[in-house]
């Protein structure tokens, strides 16, 4: 809802009603948080639409990057973070290279996703990738078919990564634990019985 201006004059209220600039579900901190996490200057957006026009996800969905930038500026945190379209950005950075205001809309999306994760809003496959890295160091781990193929190529069956040197895995686990990533991933997936 738009905030009432209380001029005490219904005609003026009607004429000057601002539906979008200031609403009671707007969080003034949101823009600052997005700008800090994304290292961007979202408030400089003049809504030209170059970003949406460059976006490979726009023509095949309701996802509009320009709308998300506007939501950042208006502080519409709930609306932005709960919109499933938030996860349709391929992070191709076309909008970022073309934005005439040098705003890096892609990084606005990344910042919003970080904020969404703090509310447990996150695609489940992201969490599973995190779990795999915790146990193996790899998001896409090796398998037996591939091991056999590697051997035929004259490569070691396991690559010289954390696969070949598992003694490095505890260090990785310490980093992920520092940010409670595994803990949160496990909890969110468990709450859904996965």
């Amino acid at each position, binding site marked *: 809802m738009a905030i009432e201006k209380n001029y005490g004059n219904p005609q003026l209220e009607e004429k000057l009603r601002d539906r979008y600039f200031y609403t009671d579900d707007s969080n003034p901190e949101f823009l600052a948080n997005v700008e800090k996490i994304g290292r961007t200057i979202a408030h400089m957006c003049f809504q030209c639409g170059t970003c949406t026009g460059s976006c*490979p996800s726009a023509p095949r969905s309701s996802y509009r990057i320009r709308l998300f930038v506007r939501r950042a500026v208006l502080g519409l945190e709930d609306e932005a973070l709960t919109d499933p379209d938030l996860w349709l950005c*391929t*992070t*191709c950075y076309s909008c970022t*290279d073309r934005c005439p205001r040098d705003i890096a809309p892609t990084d606005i999306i990344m910042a919003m996703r970080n904020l969404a994760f703090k509310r447990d809003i996150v695609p489940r496959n992201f969490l599973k990738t995190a779990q795999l890295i915790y146990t193996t160091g*790899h998001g896409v781990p090796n398998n037996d078919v591939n091991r056999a193929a590697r051997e035929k190529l004259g490569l070691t069956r396991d690559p010289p990564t954390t696969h070949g040197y598992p003694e490095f895995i505890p260090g990785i686990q310490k980093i992920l634990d520092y940010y409670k*990533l595994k803990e949160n991933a496990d909890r969110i997936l468990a709450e859904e019985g996965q």
Partner: protein
Amino acid sequence: MSGNMHQYAFFLGCIAPNRYPGCEAAAIKTSQRVGIELLPLKGGSCCPAPGAFGSIDLNVWYAMAARNVVLAEQMNMDIALICNGCYKSIFEVNHILKHNDELRDGVNEVLKEIDMEYKGSIDVWHLAELYYDPAICGVDKIRASITRPLTGTKIAVHYGCHLMKPKKERHFGDTENPMWIEELVDALGAESVQYRNKMQCCGAGGGVRGYDLTHSLDITNEKMINLREVGADALTEVCPFCQLQYDRGQIEIKEKFGIDYGLPVLHYNELLGLAQGMSPQELALDLHAIDCKPFLEKIL
């Protein structure tokens, strides 16, 4: 330095070693023939996946990528890698941490727990840019290394997103219509071809492939339509994740949309390997989902 070889710590990532090991084998062998030696970066992990990890928590992404950089710092060597996703993580985090004290201090606080420190003492390169750089290798040297020219083949290039974009945090210049990988393709005796919307994303990134496969494949399908229009014999790229999206993606497109393209997809290192006389077996091309035979028949 051994002899006059340029040495690099070879960061593997996940998809090359664990899904397309031919890319790894090809990189090691082809680079050797042009004066580049790739040494194993022991204990490297996932870069980590910029889409999944960056989206969850950028701080974890910085710290995990920094750990991989530190392994190379300990070898006192620049990193070379063969995947655009890895480039995004490893190059960009290195770049950010070199220029942002606050983030670097944050990362080092975490790394202290595992007795590591990020110093910012090395640089990160994609092998393709090293091939193109005349100070390291250059197109002429690539051309001179060829024993089996890919004459008579039309090859389209997919640059991918994360190698060159965002351009203000890179050093490649134009991202609207670059031509340097075409030069590398032409050096193999092939004819590089242009197609509509060349710089469009493959559709896999940002976690979208895992989040909404149909959406992701629809982007890939648009690329496939544009590639078919110009009659390319093969598509080449410099990113195993793009490769996976085009290669396995064509099978998924067939299942979901009922369209069969059958376009062979080869990493530039695999293509270079073929042109340097490596056999399809030495490149494990049989692991590709799309049969490379129609392309191979033109050159073998």
